[in-house]
């Protein structure tokens, strides 16, 4: 009876999911409710979790509840600690969810709502969740070792070096892109700049309060910090309307870029407790609250999607970024579908908290599904906007036109009606001077989110506050990624330099801290500056580069995972990781080929450099395009190397020439399993 009911329930979920997906895919010329999108996502996730992740857990990985995890064997009350699965789930989700799943889907909405949505769902269920799940298990079985260490042990020295190089490269590009999004969101916005500037003294105050007045009361301190941030948003309105104050916060893009670089350097060199830790707490607090609020807002308001399922820009002529649906939709949305960066977290703090192997399925696979849902919500936020408004916000001036009338005319000619007066009214309603040419995805997401929130809470009167709340929320956790990333990058460089000269490897030696902080900030700062000076808006070149780097890192992680699966004598199931790996390699190599060699100057870096050279353009811009081409090429070469090394391992093991020996920690029977029977 029970199994009959279960069968009925899962059949109903499958039918509902099919209906929702068919409704999304087959609707033409009619507007559709966002709840169809959410329903399709929830059904696909439920089916993926119940059936696919269960299959992987049982057949491919053979999770063993009797096997003691490092949290149990090496418990020290600090890094290694058996922790409740829901707590680890929350901890892991808070670490993997960042600005990526919000920004990528907003940018990819230029193709319409359908391609991005389908990629988010399929990519997460068969790619991203699988990567997070298997890497987490393999790290657990190796005492919480990092991806780089696992690559070195299982694939060899080349694997380790490539993994190290990939992580550094993706970090530099990621930080530059993050900074560029903040610059584009805050330029000429005294309200936004004031609010974000205030989060720095608020974080410092939190640091001092936490250390001197209420030691260890982080939640209480975060609530106070959050209240102060809300006051700063409210104060931002006053600042923007007071000319004497506004002039200090009305910053140009280059001015903001310099300010962010100074901030990144300070955050890397200052004591952690003073700035970095309180900001991290504050950002996490706002992030978790806002994501929950957005989900409630979408359900309560169930808005209509105004974006069509497919736009004309699938042909590659998109204004936000150039390039056809394949491969560019798939590298634009990384986080939310599959993100290589997650493999660093799955092989970082999380494996040291896992209490039982069987709980890894929920933490690894489940948390990625939750992040994927965040990406679906971002798609909703972008697609509830009128397409004309969406393109007016996201199109760079170099494509749409410098003046509002010209931009409105160009965008209307694309088939998405918009007027300069309408955009002016919208800008006024959110407390901005203009919303044209606000590339980067964050402002469009903020307008969409404000639209959803103001429809369910507070009405149009609070539109400006909701917009700036959304902008603050995005900028705050983008800056958190920036300061944490700068520090991690600094550590990695110190680690590398330490092999050349020991003192440089000492993480507490100030000359080393300052030098390596300077190097990492200069590296991402260079790309940021390049993006700020780019007449095409920067996002056109940097976001695809970031997408390629991030997914190539995922390819590295999947190479490691496939190698281990083959060595575990489970080659017949290797398709579980080999299929997403093949897809990622196809997508990223094709995208890299286009980004380097495409003859269209809006797509190919070298074509752009040639165009600039023939038109007597700036030598710096020509150099930057060639540099981007070289960086893309280097990433592809690195991944090709690890692919060759991995394939050698697979063939060696399968042909019996190589011993299939995995470098796992020895099996120890779990005391926790015995206690629980």
């Amino acid at each position: 009876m029970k199994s009959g009911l279960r069968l009925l329930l899962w059949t109903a979920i499958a039918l509902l999911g099919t209906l929702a997906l068919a409704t999304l895919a087959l609707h033409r010329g009619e507007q559709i409710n966002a709840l169809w999108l959410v329903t399709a996502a929830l059904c696909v996730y439920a089916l993926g979790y119940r059936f696919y992740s269960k299959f992987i857990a049982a057949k491919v990985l053979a999770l063993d509840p009797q096997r003691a995890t490092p949290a149990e064997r090496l418990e020290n009350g600090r890094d290694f600690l058996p922790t409740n699965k829901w707590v680890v789930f929350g901890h892991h989700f808070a670490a993997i969810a960042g600005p990526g799943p919000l920004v990528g889907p907003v940018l990819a909405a230029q193709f319409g709502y359908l391609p991005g949505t389908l990629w988010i769902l399929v990519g997460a269920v068969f790619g991203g969740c699988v990567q997070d799940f298997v890497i987490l298990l393999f790290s657990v079985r190796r005492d919480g070792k990092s991806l780089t260490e696992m690559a070195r042990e299982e694939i060899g020295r080349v694997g380790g070096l490539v993994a190290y190089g990939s992580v550094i490269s993706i970090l530099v590009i990621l930080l530059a892109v993050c900074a560029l999004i903040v610059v584009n969101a805050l330029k000429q916005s005294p309200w936004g700049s004031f609010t974000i500037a205030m989060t720095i003294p608020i974080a410092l105050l939190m640091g001092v309060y936490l250390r001197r007045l209420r030691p260890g009361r982080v939640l209480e301190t975060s609530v106070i910090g959050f209240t102060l941030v809300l006051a700063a948003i409210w104060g931002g309105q006053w600042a923007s309307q007071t000319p004497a104050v506004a002039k200090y916060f009305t910053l140009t893009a280059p001015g903001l870029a310099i300010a962010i670089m100074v901030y990144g350097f300070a955050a890397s060199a200052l004591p952690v407790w003073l700035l970095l830790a309180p900001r991290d707490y504050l950002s996490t607090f706002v992030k978790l609250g806002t994501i929950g609020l957005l989900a409630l807002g979408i359900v309560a308001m169930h808005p209509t999607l105004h974006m069509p399922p497919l736009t004309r820009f699938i042909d590659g002529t998109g204004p936000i970024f150039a390039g056809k649906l394949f491969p560019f939709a798939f590298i634009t949305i990384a986080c939310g579908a599959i993100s290589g960066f997650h493999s660093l977290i799955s092989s970082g703090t999380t494996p040291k908290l896992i209490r039982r192997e069987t709980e890894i399925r929920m933490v690894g696979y489940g948390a990625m599904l939750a992040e994927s849902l965040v990406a679906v919500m971002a798609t909703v936020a972008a697609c509830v906007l009128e397409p004309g408004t969406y393109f007016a916000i996201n199109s760079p001036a170099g494509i749409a036109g410098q003046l509002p009338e010209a931009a409105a005319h160009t965008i209307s000619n694309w088939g998405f009606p918009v007027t300069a007066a309408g955009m002016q009214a919208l800008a006024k309603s959110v407390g901005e001077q203009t919303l044209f040419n606000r590339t980067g995805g964050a402002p469009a997401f903020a307008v969409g989110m404000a639209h959803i929130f103001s429809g369910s809470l507070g009405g149009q009167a609070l539109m400006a506050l909701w917009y700036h709340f959304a902008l603050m929320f995005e900028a705050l956790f983008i800056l958190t990624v920036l300061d944490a990333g700068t520090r991690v990058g600094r550590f990695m460089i110190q680690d590398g330099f330490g092999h050349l000269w020991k003192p440089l490897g000492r993480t507490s030696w100030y000359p080393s801290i300052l030098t390596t902080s300077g190097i990492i900030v200069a590296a991402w700062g260079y790309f940021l500056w390049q993006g700020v000076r780019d007449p095409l808006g920067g996002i056109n070149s940097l976001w695809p580069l970031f997408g390629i780097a991030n997914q190539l890192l995922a390819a590295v992680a999947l190479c490691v995972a496939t190698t281990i699966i083959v060595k575990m004598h489970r080659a017949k199931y290797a398709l579980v990781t080999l299929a997403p790996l093949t897809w990622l390699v196809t997508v990223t190599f094709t995208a890299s080929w286009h980004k380097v060699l495409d003859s269209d100057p809006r797509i190919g870096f070298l074509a752009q450099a040639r165009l600039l050279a023939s038109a007597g353009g700036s030598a710096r811009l020509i150099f930057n395009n060639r540099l981007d081409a070289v960086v893309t090429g280097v990433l592809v070469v690195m991944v090709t190397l690890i692919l060759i090394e991995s394939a050698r391992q697979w063939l060696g093991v399968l042909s019996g020439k190589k011993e299939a020996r995995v470098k796992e920690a020895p099996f120890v029977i779990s005391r926790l399993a015995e206690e629980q029977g």
Partner: protein
Amino acid sequence: MTFLRMFLATLKEIFDESAYERFCAREGVGANCKSYALFLHESDQTRQQKVRCC
């Protein structure tokens, strides 16, 4: 009730409050400025290398 308890426990873990409680229990000290400074010092390396995803 169980849900609320679990939710609070998750928040306390994410925000390092539980880690500080464990530190105090392990070292046999109370919650004060001195022990918190020691806790921050001990967890400094881990905290500094904590990756935040994009």
